[in-house]
């Protein structure tokens, strides 16, 4: 089918838009990557060609920056949050998806709405509570607070995946001789595993990127990577070449896992928000 002039025009616009989108999305990341390989002098310039160095990546792990423990904190906090949130969310999502009961809608709305409570409201009382319990500047405190936003999101996302699973398959397993627990183990869980993994990745990313709670509740022992960036904001200004290297440290793991599961990621992304 030949294109009309009108269609040709929009086809051209589409390509122009494609280029613009690519630049808009990729450039800030590209520039960070580039800067992380620059020596300080080059970093404070708009040079595209320079002699690259790996020094920045080495020095952020040395005094006075010491990103090693920060990385460790981020890993521990994110993994712990996911380890608690995902099993709890999976069970709750299954109950919401498969059972009818009084007050179900009200409960689901509460779970959904808890995502919308501003973090600053949550952190005020916990700051006082943790101060009294001597939990300030601990990883445990961060895990507890991260659950407040990771868990409700995970419930909704996993519920979406369970809703998409035809109930007939579970009925078939019941007729085949499974009890409730066996159905979950042999049929439901294996089938919603992609959804559970995707939710886990989402939860991990959310905790990993979390900034506000860590900024308020930690100052030394439990500082995470995102808050660690603040330490590169020194009296001499921001040390951009180090900042860029530290950014890589934050971005690369997230990019790597989300790229690996990109197909599920994209479908899961849209599942939480709209039906």
């Amino acid at each position: 089918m030949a294109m009309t002039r009108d269609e040709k025009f929009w086809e051209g616009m589409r390509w122009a838009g494609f280029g613009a989108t690519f630049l808009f999305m990729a450039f800030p990341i590209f520039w960070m990557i580039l800067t992380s390989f620059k020596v300080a002098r080059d970093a404070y310039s708009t040079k595209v060609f320079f002699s690259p160095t790996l020094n920045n990546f080495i020095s952020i792990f040395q005094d006075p920056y010491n990103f090693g423990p920060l990385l460790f904190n981020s890993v521990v906090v994110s993994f712990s949050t996911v380890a608690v949130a995902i099993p709890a969310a999976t069970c709750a999502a299954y109950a919401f998806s498969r059972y009818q009961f009084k007050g179900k809608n009200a409960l689901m709305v509460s779970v959904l709405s808890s995502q919308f409570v501003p973090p600053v409201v949550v952190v005020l009382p916990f700051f006082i509570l943790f101060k009294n319990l001597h939990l300030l500047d601990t990883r445990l405190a961060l895990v507890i607070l991260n659950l407040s936003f990771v868990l409700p999101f995970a419930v909704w996302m996993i519920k979406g995946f369970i809703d998409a699973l035809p109930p007939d398959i579970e009925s078939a397993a019941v007729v085949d001789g499974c009890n409730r627990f066996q159905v979950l183990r042999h049929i439901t869980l294996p089938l919603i595993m992609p959804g559970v993994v995707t939710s886990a990745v989402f939860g991990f990313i959310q905790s990993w990127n979390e900034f506000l709670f860590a900024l308020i509740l930690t100052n030394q022992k439990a500082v995470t990577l995102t808050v660690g960036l603040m330490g590169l904001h020194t009296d001499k200004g921001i040390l951009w070449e180090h900042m860029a290297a530290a950014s890589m440290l934050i971005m690369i793991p997230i990019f790597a896992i989300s790229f690996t599961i990109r197909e599920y990621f994209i479908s899961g992304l849209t599942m939480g928000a709209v039906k």
Partner: protein
Amino acid sequence: MAGIKMVDVKKQYPNGFVAIENMNLEIPDKEFVVLVGPSGCAKSTALKMIAGLEEISSGEMYIGDRLVNKVPPKDREIAMVFQSYALYPHMTIYDNIAFGLKMRKTPKEEIDKLVKEASEILGMSDLLDRKPRQLSGGQRQRVALGRAIVRHPQVFLFDEPLSNLDAKLRVKMRTELKKLHERLHTTVVYVTHDQVEAMTMGSTIVVLKLGAIQQVGSPLSLYSFPSNRFVAGFIGSPSMNFLDCTIAEENGNLFVDTGAFRLMLPEDKAAKVRDHGGKEFIFGIRPEDIRKRREKKESYSEEHINAKINVIEPLGKEMYVNLSAGNLEFMAIINARFPLKPHEEVELTLNMDRMHLFEKEGEKEAVAHTAKNATTLEGARLMADLDESDDD
């Protein structure tokens, strides 16, 4: 092997909705029973109650001699084939078929033997290593069957198993399922919304509407002796013509008067409505019981009807003809040899032995055949069909 008995079985949902009200049904052992009805008639709910997937609100359900109200599905010795097949997408075909046996802790060699046997019966031995998504719709259907037969259950439950197949495959699978039933000789309860499927497959048909049983009987008895207007309209395609009418009396004879035409009632039917003169009824006649008048045949009406042809749908051997008489519209099936054209006038005669009268209130059949007994009438009907193809 076992039959099924439902006594006053009721299904009421927590929100108060009553899906099934006091259902009483006895399904003899080894019978092929079809539950048929339009959507919303609770046929699938009834099936799920037999399976134990839906709780019974009150009443009693027996499989064999055992009361199964509280027996979980896995202990009911049933197997079920679902409309969506409900294959386990993460398991191979072999594992799909073997799953039920594994859950019952059948020894491994035994499982292997049974799976092989079942897959041979269904001719899919070469598919066992694949995953469900690699199979065509028809093959998935077979796997679903295989999963059911491998367990040698007391009762097979089929929930619209053919509705996801294309028309050709569906016709083929009907025959295969019937053959399978003859071979396995096990009770089958089969749910469908398709009356043709019900007629071709069931040895007994249960017609349901809004959770209530309308009629139970053999395919031909439902066709010939529908007990009410719903069954009459539901069974048979194209469906029966229904025309409002009154009963008029003249010289001791009773007539059906539709406004557009008047037809004399045969004596045996007239006897049933003799004291109903002047009352309103619904006159029912199947399209295949209307023919073009050529020569009078026994049992066809003395009088003829003049009708105008609106639309002709030629089907080859015969044609569906939409006609008008006065302000009434109806359908007739007429042998294709007659050179009919739209807008022509045509003279028709009706087979008054096969007409029906339904009460306006309650829509019950008022002139059910009793003069000749059912079996002979079925025979007569078949004979008439043979006649027809001979002399037209």
